[in-house]
């Protein structure tokens, strides 16, 4: 079964984060032979998303900090005399200060495991049988044995994090020994198959327990990065232009929130919002509309702001006819810029960008991908694969092989000791060794992820996707961006919310973000507290970590990289994805200046079938639906079957 990997490609891409995946797709699309590898057993690198158990494994791996030092094939014999090597890093060091906390009762979760795997949950199998309406309900038992065998044949794969997916990689059970810190309650479950775990904890429909989170773990898709897509941003444009958009679905962010004077409020931003707002007075509505209208074409009215070009945007706002709450909304929630550092012009630009994105898909400027941001790199990878790109997860690269004379990189040597040659090499920053990066100065991103039991702002509608900017109380410190996701985004289980907090680091993630968490949430889950605290959402589980921000590093800062090796950065701290898209396009054009970047992939309906005529009677059919995702006009079915319809319908 172990297929042999070809040893010659045009482009080798190492890392499956967003920029690498876009480049891989663009290269394959333009006819290059692409090999795309990742040393992890999941897609996305630091752009990945995980099920709950997958995230626990990821946490454990990053807390342990043990080198992976698996024996690698000796490669020295593969290197010729006129060649030298650039070793790659053996261990990803981009994640630090990982701290996780469980605020619920963990003991009840001790024997609970994630549902979904065949062995675990009889209900699952049974419901399947129902769904398929086979004559009788079968028990799962005959299969359990078979599968247990299959599993045990693959012991070498047991380690490592489990992504939301990946074929026959590791098994989903987390093999934790219950000793490290807090997160371990999931436990390695003895094969007490199917014992419906701790029913006691399932009572009280509103009170989600840790056991339930563990059991429903696969309903979570928890992103390592927290971003939204600007509806007129570069990523949306690229998804549409390349037709990669057909692989994903999105939800609108439904609310823009602000945190002011200890309270969370909704920010009206579209015209309709402003008029319908109950919190604004008539005067405020007029002020706000007037100002926002001005921002949309501020370039036409330089006289309005030119005296303030050297001031901050915040100062400029204070000179306009705006109440303090309106100034707060505009500065923090609409422009989302720094109070102390953002100039008037930058602020106006940011406001305009926000306003221009309104209305394309909904009431706010933002979209969020169903199942999480981690889907997006996978979508580009699929496009690459559809155009012939070859994919290998769990595939490490030991070194780059450089020709001494030309100074160009010729090949890689992988962990099997196979030498694979190519013309171009794309390497994600975290794969580079310390030697290569000694002169690089990295920033950090502080991240927190919380699972909570209600929204930070409860309204009639439960299913809300909200973005909230919380300015720092210390002058000059960056604001914290909070994104709250509801279960209909397919990132968390019902009756919970998934809350992401992000800011550029000044200290450890916990030090940076915990003050904001304390303001917004109730951390004393078990104890009864004052009323005020009770109104806040309870945090059921939380993790903090710092992630390296390698964006904006110039190529020349890396030592000794050949010209045909390009470096992609990990996620940046910005809300949008423009940085990754720009980087991908720039690198692609450096390699292939004359090629078009991600032209549309053909519609499925438009491919092939020269000899078959398309049945003419079908043209009429497809016009009927409005919800068609693509602009396709023809069904591709080669006829026959659809001619029947009407009669069927009669009865």
């Amino acid at each position, binding site marked *: 079964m172990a297929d042999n990997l070809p040893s010659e490609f045009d482009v080798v891409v190492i890392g499956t984060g967003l920029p690498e995946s876009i480049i891989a797709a663009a290269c394959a699309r333009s006819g290059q032979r692409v090999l795309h590898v990742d040393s992890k057993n999941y897609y996305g690198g630091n752009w990945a998303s995980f099920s709950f158990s997958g995230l626990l494994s990821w946490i454990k791996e990053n807390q342990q900090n043990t080198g992976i030092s698996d024996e690698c094939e000796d490669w020295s014999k593969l290197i010729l005399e006129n060649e030298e090597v650039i070793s790659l890093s053996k261990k990803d060091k981009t994640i630090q200060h990982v701290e996780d906390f469980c605020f619920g009762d963990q003991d009840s979760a001790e024997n609970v495991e994630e549902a979904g795997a065949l062995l675990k949950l009889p209900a699952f199998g049974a419901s399947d049988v129902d769904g398929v309406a086979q004559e009788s309900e079968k028990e799962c038992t005959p299969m359990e044995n078979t599968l247990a065998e299959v599993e045990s044949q693959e012991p070498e794969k047991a380690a490592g994090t489990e992504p939301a997916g990946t074929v026959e990689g590791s098994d989903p059970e987390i093999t934790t020994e219950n000793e490290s810190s807090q997160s371990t309650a999931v436990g390695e479950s003895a094969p007490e198959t199917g014992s419906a775990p701790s029913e006691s904890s399932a009572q009280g429909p509103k009170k989600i327990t840790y056991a339930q989170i563990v059991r429903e773990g696969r309903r979570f898709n928890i992103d390592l990065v927290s971003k939204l897509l600007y509806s007129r941003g570069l990523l949306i444009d690229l998804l549409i232009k390349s037709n990669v958009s057909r692989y994903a679905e999105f939800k609108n962010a439904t609310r823009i929130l602000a945190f002011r004077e200890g309270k969370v409020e909704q920010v009206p931003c579209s015209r309709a919002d402003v008029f319908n707002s109950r919190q604004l007075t008539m005067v405020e509505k007029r002020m706000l509309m007037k100002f926002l209208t001005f921002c949309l074409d501020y370039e036409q009215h330089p006289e309005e702001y030119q005296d303030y070009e050297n001031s901050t945007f915040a100062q400029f706002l204070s000179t306009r006819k705006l109440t303090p709450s309106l100034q707060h909304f505009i500065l923090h929630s609409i422009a989302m810029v720094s109070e102390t550092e953002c100039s008037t012009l930058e602020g106006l630009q940011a406001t305009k960008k926000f306003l221009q994105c309104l209305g394309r898909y909904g009431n706010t400027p933002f979209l969020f991908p169903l199942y999480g941001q981690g889907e997006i790199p996978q979508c580009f990878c699929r496009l690459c694969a559809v155009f012939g790109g070859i994919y290998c997860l769990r595939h490490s690269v030991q070194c780059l092989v450089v020709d001494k004379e030309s100074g160009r990189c010729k090949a890689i040597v992988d962990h099997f000791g196979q030498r694979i040659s190519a013309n171009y090499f794309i390497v994600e920053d975290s794969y580079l060794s310390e030697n290569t990066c000694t002169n690089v100065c990295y920033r950090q991103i502080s991240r927190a992820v919380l699972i909570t039991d209600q929204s930070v702002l409860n309204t009639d509608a439960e299913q809300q996707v909200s973005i909230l900017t919380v300015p720092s109380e210390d002058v000059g410190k960056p604001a914290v961006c909070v994104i709250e996701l509801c279960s209909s985004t397919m990132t968390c289980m019902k009756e919970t919310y998934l809350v992401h907090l992000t800011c550029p680091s000044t200290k450890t993630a916990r030090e940076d973000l915990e003050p904001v968490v304390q303001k917004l949430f109730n951390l004393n889950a078990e104890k009864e507290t004052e009323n005020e605290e009770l109104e806040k959402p309870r945090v059921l589980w939380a993790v903090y970590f710092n992630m390296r921000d390698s964006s904006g590093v110039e190529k020349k800062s890396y030592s000794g990289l050949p010209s045909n090796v390009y470096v992609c950065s990990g996620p940046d701290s910005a809300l949008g994805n423009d940085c990754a898209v720009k980087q991908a396009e720039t690198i692609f054009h450096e390699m292939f200046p004359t090629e078009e970047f991600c032209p549309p992939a053909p519609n*499925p309906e438009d491919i092939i079938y020269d000899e078959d005529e398309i049945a003419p009677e079908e043209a009429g059919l497809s016009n009927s639906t409005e919800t068609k995702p693509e602009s396709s006009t023809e069904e591709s079915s080669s006829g026959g079957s659809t001619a029947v319809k009407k009669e069927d319908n009669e009865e």
Partner: protein
Amino acid sequence: MMAIRELKVCLLGDTGVGKSSIVCRFVQDHFDHNISPTIGASFMTKTVPCGNELHKFLIWDTAGQERFHSLAPMYYRGSAAAVIVYDITKQDSFHTLKKWVKELKEHGPENIVMAIAGNKCDLSDIREVPMKDAKEYAESIGAIVVETSAKNAVNIEELFQGISRQIPPLDPHENGNNGAIKLGKQTSQTGGN
């Protein structure tokens, strides 16, 4: 007017068992001996009537990502059904079928319809997997099972008809996609090709 329902179907199974050939036969009624690994096709579509509905199958191929065990989770998202293919002349492919089912149970949607296709039944003289084994296994997991030949167009239509019948009728107050947005090209770029 019949409603058209789009149903994503994902194909699973070892490289070389005939996944692409099955779709090719179903969608184009065509068989190619040296089918090249599906270049450029994101998915193929075919619409078939089923009761009061039209089922528009969007059939996703693995695009070769299964070859080195690197299928992405997004491949399974939102699938109404999965066709899991093995080769009746290769016992190995029947073994790994079980791994695919396990994978599907872990990462696929909960109520996914599973259909097992024992392909290459035109080669039954070199068969390694008895039909009985497949039937028993399919029953144990509540899956449909048929033996197919993409080459001779045996049971291909039936396979998809079987899937159609297992798809639960549309919940009237759910109208399909619970408000998810698909990014179309309605805003720009008219058609082209």
